[in-house]
């Protein structure tokens, strides 16, 4: 409970931080934000899991969300592409702006916008009845892409981006489930990339994988961020340090601190953040 009191007193700091720092930009260059979350409040059964979170995500950068279990990271992530409201008894208020357009303004736009926001889940979840090829092509076929050549081109391109093409190019007809866990996860990332998103949400994408598969995913993230805006939820702080440019620390539904990853881990301004990144709790 002490922690909560601490938080209250630091609310002001936090807001200051968000508006002024951490982006020490040259005055000439306006920072480019791809995705902006404004006043996001998300609840299950009336219990608030995310309390008024404001966050801006830079284009072509990786933003990591860290925090102890149950702090609302995943819930917040799921608000960003309107997945949260699909859960029964869940409610969201606030705005999510993608390139300045509000995802929550109406349903019709949301579907178009959601195609620009891909999502990767914690556990690899390829469609069990589909082949490797069909898994990647699923989002295309179901969104009305009929052109076989375009589909082939996209499937190959996406599999290449996740470094899977060389491993599976002769086995595209094999079931997606026949791959190993790490390959399955990369297949799922390729599937997410196939609908040509601009933002990629990743919910602990490597927590079910071994170090080598994890390393591959991290390499891939480093490569992908040249073209995509990536937001990754992770429990693994080393991973956050390795892959992210910016880090947000969430605690009890609040965004406690948000800044450059280096600063968050080396010089946290908030006491709770400091304790967490030093591994004193969580």
């Amino acid at each position, binding site marked *: 409970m002490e922690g909560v009191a601490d938080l209250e007193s630091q609310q002001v700091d936090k807001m200051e931080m968000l508006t002024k720092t951490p982006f020490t930009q040259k005055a000439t260059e306006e920072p480019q934000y791809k995705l902006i979350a404004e006043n996001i409040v998300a609840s299950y059964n009336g219990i608030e899991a995310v309390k008024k979170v404001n966050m801006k995500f830079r284009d072509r950068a990786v933003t990591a969300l860290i925090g102890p*279990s*149950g*702090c609302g*990271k*995943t*819930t917040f992530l*799921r608000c960003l592409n309107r997945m*949260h409201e*699909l*859960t*029964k*008894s869940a409610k969201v208020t606030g705005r999510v702006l993608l390139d300045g357009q509000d995802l929550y303004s109406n*349903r*019709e736009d949301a*579907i*178009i916008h959601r*195609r620009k926001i891909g999502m990767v889940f*914690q556990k690899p979840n390829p469609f069990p009845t589909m082949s490797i090829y069909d898994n990647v092509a699923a989002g*295309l076929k179901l*969104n*009305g*892409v*009929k*052109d076989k050549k*375009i589909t082939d081109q*996209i499937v190959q*391109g*996406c599999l290449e*981006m996740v470094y899977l093409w060389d491993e599976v190019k002769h086995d595209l007809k094999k079931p997606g489930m026949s791959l190993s866990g790490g390959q399955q996860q990369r297949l799922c990332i390729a599937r997410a*990339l196939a*609908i*040509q*998103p*601009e933002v990629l949400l990743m*919910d*602990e994408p490597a927590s079910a994988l071994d170090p080598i598969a994890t390393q591959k995913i991290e390499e891939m993230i480093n*490569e*992908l961020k*040249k*073209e995509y805006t990536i937001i990754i939820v992770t429990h693994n702080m080393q991973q956050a340090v390795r892959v992210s440019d910016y880090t947000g620390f969430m605690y009890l539904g609040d965004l406690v601190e948000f800044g450059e990853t280096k600063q968050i881990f080396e010089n946290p301004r908030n006491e709770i953040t400091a304790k967490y990144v030093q591994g004193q709790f969580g």
Partner: protein
Amino acid sequence: MITIEQRAEFRKHFRNNISSRLVTDKIVKGIVFGCVLLAIVPLGSIILEIVRNGVPVLSIEFLTAPPGAVGSADPGGIGPAIQGTLMLIGMSSLIGVPVGVLGGIFLSEYGNNRYGNMIRFFNDVLAEFPTIVIGLFAFAVIVLTFGYFSIVAGMFALSVIMLPVITRTTEESLKLVPVTYREAGYALGIKRSVIILRILLTSAKSGLITGIMLSVARVAGETAPLIFTILGNDDFFSGFDQPMDALPLRIYRLANLPYDSATAQGWGGALILILIILSLNVGVRYLFLRKRGGGGRFRITAGR
């Protein structure tokens, strides 16, 4: 790497017919809702009719007294029939439930071989058997052997009818238990039999109970096999070697009588039968499922 310009290019191949998709969505929702209404109308009208016609004859006497003489001023009640139905449900469950559940366990846990497939096949055939044939079977096996109609013969027939339904639903609900539960059990060094009985069965409880209640509801309404087995009786239970009355049988007899009072009593009997099945169902569910947290609501786990 697909650049942002390429992505915009690729995206042009997508169909952007969102508004028409939303219209289709509404139409399909309407059709689904209409089908639900269509399904509810007969059910609702049957219940309404039974309640409307059955409630006026309800009284303590109707529920407890034996039937009066046919066509007399005092029509009596359906006491023996209620007693018979309750006894039959209880006695046939006594045989049908354990045998059915154990059979289901066998099929799900030990039945992935030729014998399992054979049993599964015959079990399915048995489930589709006309119940009147099962009644005749009980007649041949029990009634002819012992030389009298009795509640034991009725119990035998009804438990045979219950068996395949319970076996099948038990197997299916055990198979739905995630394999991780099983693995977690093995990892704790628990014996297979204990895993089945203490972990799998409790996880599959809700499906199991649905299957059992389904079969109870089915046998409670059976009429044909009872004609050959318990025969019918105007008196209360007087021994396992005596013919016995049961609600469906009584309703059938009453409905065939040419007196208005008898027809009215038939409606009353139908109402009572429905109420018995309903209260059994609700009661059993309450007893066995109330402790489960969240009341079985399904929730997408959002992780943390």
